[in-house]
């Protein structure tokens, strides 16, 4: 399997390690009044879709960047990859 690294081009998937759902980027605010419930959901609840899934991958044997990879869990087709940093900054910028 090849991963389309946004900076380095196609790279062997064995250079990467998988973390999990890209929703892990949305860490709840620990100071919010409903923090406990929000963290409970954040830590324990995951969707398990058959189909398109956004997930976090670490380029461990590479440039050590975190990527958000869009992958079809049914066909294993990798539909795209972006730097997790860019995703997080864009989200912050849009206030979402």
């Amino acid at each position: 399997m090849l991963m389309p690294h946004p900076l380095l081009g196609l790279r062997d998937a064995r250079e990467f390690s998988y973390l999990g759902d890209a929703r892990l980027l949305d860490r709840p605010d620990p100071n919010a009044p409903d923090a406990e419930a929000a963290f409970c959901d954040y830590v324990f609840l995951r969707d398990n879709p058959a189909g398109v899934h956004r997930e976090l991958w670490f380029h461990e044997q590479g440039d050590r960047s975190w990527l958000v990879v869009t992958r079809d869990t049914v066909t294993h087709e990798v539909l795209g990859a972006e730097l997790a940093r860019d995703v997080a900054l864009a989200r912050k910028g849009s206030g979402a």
Partner: protein
Amino acid sequence: MSELRPITALGAAQPRLASFGALEIRENADLALASLALRFGTREPTPFGLTLPRTGRWVAGEGVAALWTGPGQWMIEAQGRVELDFTAELKQVAPGCSVTEQTDGWVAFEIISRAGSMPLESLLSKLVNIDPADLGPGRATRTGLDHMSCFVIRRGAAHVALLAARSSAGSLWHSLETAAKRQEEKVT
């Protein structure tokens, strides 16, 4: 007072050197290394007059060289300055950046071909899963080699360097030796 003697990454008093047909593999024990990372909002420095390389590249300057290791991060090499405090020198010329001593964390092997780029490229294609087109002279990348993470630096058409964790120096030498030996046997 006890008499301390420095040893190389492979544990000997002298760096190891071996030849396999047209290829020569040499342990480079005189390479000083320091990492350089930009901090948020700092300007990119030009240490020792070196323009830091772009993504996936390596450049050599006067006595120093640099390779890109990640966004806003580089490894700076200084041949022959292993016994000097190179990190302190680099800090002076990279104000505001994070500079970390790396010399003793790595082992460097230089692979040189005496018969042009062909034997070298053939060896590389066995060792690392990187498109040869992305490993031309002036390119550098980190990848896996027999499950070891290492930097592959193409210093010239007939010269490649590998940087790997110093603790796995023996295993990396074994991998290189095995692949080079097989290639030599195939040719003769």
